[in-house]
């Protein structure tokens, strides 16, 4: 609103006091303009679009419950003797950090509940991020223009894991100490600099007396600040790019079909926050998480059976468990110039996670390079309509799950009454075979589903009614689809492989040949959507069926 227009127009005076105050504020901050802009933002509706929201709400809950916990937690590693209401640890020597965690659990009103809210919310936070990323991957939402937002999302996942891990270590109980010791071992296995990093981090030899305080600062200051920054970036880009939508009639890359944010969606989203809060609160109220009093204070000598990290670090722990110490006579530990290089820790701890995150971050560019597709995409792919991408995703997912399962190998052994060794051997085999199998099976399943879609688009839905024609032939009646449903089945792209193209010098480079080979792998096996011509032809075929049906109806009328 410009100054001139304000001078001309008669000054608006609200009728009520509240209205006048609102108007006063609005004239100074321009809230109504912002509201007008955002309130009109259109969001498509689908349940799978809500996991990002779940993550955001979990984060808000984490901030709230975490603030409560900081009021009572003391991150000191000074030694003390427990003197609280839990008799099972009475007078046991422990760190102040552990003692204050016990006090939060047993002597602060509502403390145990808040601790459990915080921990369950943390698990849900990372889980919803993971599901959100899977949704984005399998629907192709990472394509132009959203590649950078995909990367920001990946950074958020790593930050969430970092937040979780630093928090996991704070209570200084046996479980968290064991977890820290593994991290210390991994750090120390890094050649040359590993021991130095470990000594800087722990302020001397593990466990030292400073690590809890340092992790606390990272956990409550640096990591949440970075997460907040990334969330702002993430949401900013969502606003800039607008939301993606599933394919449907009237939806294309130039529009967003849905309902505006205000007022209904805003109310729904606000209500959803309380639903997420409620689910977490119920879990915290009825289900124990991290019963630190069971584990006792940290002491470097005992390691409890069933020591695992929280689920999001599990795949790294699983990789460590799967790694053999020796294969036959082949050792993974070398002494070079008096320094020990222990590959049986270094390889499993860093390589699988490295591969996973590298491929994840680079995938949008890899696919863009293979497909040479530089268009903007706002309409999502149904996973079956991108069989190779879906297969790659499932291969990676399977690989992750094998490592994930390996982190619980001891519990698989005890609960299914099988040998721990056999579980490990099978998982080792699946580590290599699993992704390949998953790739092949997923691709075939996706192609089969596409074929089924094509069949339905062309011939309609099977009704299960068997009709006998006058000359004795039996046929099953197919009901034709309505246009909306048919659009969903035929409205997608099915790119053909792009052969290698010579560059401006007329040379087909080796890189281009590789790209062409990958393009062949991606798109060689494909099911093209039914064309209008094919639909027309099939419809003619349907005419026959419809004639039968009318004839049959007449017959039943005459009876």
């Amino acid at each position, binding site marked *: 609103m410009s100054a001139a227009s304000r001078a001309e127009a008669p000054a608006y005076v609200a009728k009520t006091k509240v209205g006048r105050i609102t108007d006063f504020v609005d004239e100074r901050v321009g809230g109504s303009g912002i509201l007008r802009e955002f309130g009109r933002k259109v969001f498509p509706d689908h349940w799978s679009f*809500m996991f990002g929201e779940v993550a955001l709400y979990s984060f808000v809950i984490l901030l709230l419950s975490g603030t409560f916990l900081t009021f009572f937690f003391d991150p000191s590693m000074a030694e003390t003797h427990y003197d609280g209401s839990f008799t099972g640890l009475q007078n046991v020597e422990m760190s102040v950090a552990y003692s204050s965690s016990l006090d939060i659990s047993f002597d602060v009103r509502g403390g145990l509940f808040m601790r459990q809210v915080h921990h369950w919310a943390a698990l849900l936070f990372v889980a919803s991020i993971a599901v959100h990323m899977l949704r984005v991957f399998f629907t192709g939402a990472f394509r132009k223009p959203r590649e950078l937002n995909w990367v920001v999302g990946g950074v958020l996942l790593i930050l969430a894991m970092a937040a979780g891990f630093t928090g996991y270590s704070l209570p200084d109980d046996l479980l968290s100490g064991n977890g820290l010791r593994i991290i210390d071992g991994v750090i120390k296995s890094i050649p040359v600099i590993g021991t130095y990093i470990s000594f800087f981090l722990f302020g001397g030899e593990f466990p030292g007396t400073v690590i809890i305080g340092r992790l606390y600062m990272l956990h409550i200051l640096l990591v949440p600040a970075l997460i907040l920054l990334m969330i702002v970036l993430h949401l900013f880009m969502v606003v800039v790019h607008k939301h993606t939508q599933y394919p449907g009639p009237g939806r294309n890359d130039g529009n967003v079909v849905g309902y505006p944010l205000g007022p209904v969606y805003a109310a729904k989203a606000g209500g959803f926050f309380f639903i997420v809060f409620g689910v977490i609160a119920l879990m915290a109220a009825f289900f124990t998480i991290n019963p630190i009093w069971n584990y006792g204070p940290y002491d470097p000598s005992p390691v409890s059976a069933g020591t695992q990290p929280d689920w999001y670090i599990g795949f790294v722990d699983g990789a460590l468990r799967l790694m053999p110490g020796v294969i036959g006579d082949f050792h993974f530990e070398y002494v070079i110039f008096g320094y020990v290089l222990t590959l049986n820790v270094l390889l499993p701890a860093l390589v699988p996670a490295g591969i996973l995150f590298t491929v994840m971050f680079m995938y949008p560019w890899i696919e863009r390079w293979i497909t040479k597709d530089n268009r903007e995409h706002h309409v999502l792919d149904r996973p079956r309509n991108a069989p190779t991408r879906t297969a790659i995703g499932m291969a990676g997912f399977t690989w992750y799950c094998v490592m994930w399962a390996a982190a619980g190998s001891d519990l698989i052994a005890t609960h299914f009454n099988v040998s721990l060794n056999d579980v490990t051997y099978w998982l080792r085999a699946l580590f290599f075979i699993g992704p390949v199998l998953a790739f092949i099976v997923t691709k075939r399943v996706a192609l089969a589903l596409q074929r089924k879609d094509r069949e339905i688009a062309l011939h309609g839905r099977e009704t299960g009614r068997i009709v006998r024609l006058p000359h004795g032939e039996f046929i099953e009646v197919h009901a034709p689809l309505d246009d909306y449903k048919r659009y969903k089945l035929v409205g997608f792209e099915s790119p053909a492989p792009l052969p290698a193209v010579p560059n401006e010098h007329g040379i087909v480079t080796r890189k281009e040949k590789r790209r062409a080979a990958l393009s062949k792998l991606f798109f060689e096996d494909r099911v093209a959507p039914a064309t209008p011509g094919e639909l027309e032809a099939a419809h003619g075929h349907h005419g026959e069926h419809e004639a039968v049906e009318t004839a049959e109806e007449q017959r039943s009328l005459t009876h």
Partner: protein
Amino acid sequence: MKALSQKRRHPLAAIALLLMGLLVTGGLYAVATTMNQAKASTTNFTEHDTEEGGKLFAANCATCHGMGASGTQDGPSLVGVGAASVDFQVGTGRMPMQMNGPQAQEKPVQFNEEQTRQLAAYVASLGPGPSIPEAGLLDEKGNAAEGGELFRVNCAMCHNAAAAGGALTRGKYAPPLAGVSGQHIYEAMATGPQNMPVFNDANISPEGKRDIITYLKQIETNGSPGGADLGALGPVAEGLFVWIAGLGVIIAFTIWLTSRTS
């Protein structure tokens, strides 16, 4: 003394010294080990018990453990395992063993208390071994906090810090300890059944064992202060729960919220 010092360079002096050393250490060792183990068979078993136990043994156990419990290819000798061992193995149903496997499985108890006592009496009569603990050690009135520390240092690596059990190699496992009687816990520590090591009185004193039993019974009766304990299995159970129950409920809500547009 002079005679001794004159003969100190005698060719046999070294051998004599060696013999003396061996005798002293051997003697001390014998004293030490009997201190730990041999205060057995003092339990008031009657002649009758031993006799009846012998008959039961011949009928039910000798197939594998041999006549006179001297052991065969299928089962070890039971001479010197003590009454505690029999009371544990038979009293928890692990013996007689149903089949060979990585370790003897717990199953419904096969002998009544009287018969178990008779078997124990018979085996105890074969040679000295750990005896059935006195009631005073099983009163669960020790120091739970110290028991907890002992448990974490000595037991938790196999049995889990919350005594929920854990896996060992090749199908063997450390069972969960909830519902195990104090007497059986004590006997297991004293005799080291299956793959369990022996925690004799030099490792963990009888009072220490009493503390451990107190601790275990306390966590059993106290329950879980934070709500359902999900098997006390740690982060794996928690992760499984948040993925299946937590996210499951959330997904149900998202579907409900988006089922009707606006």
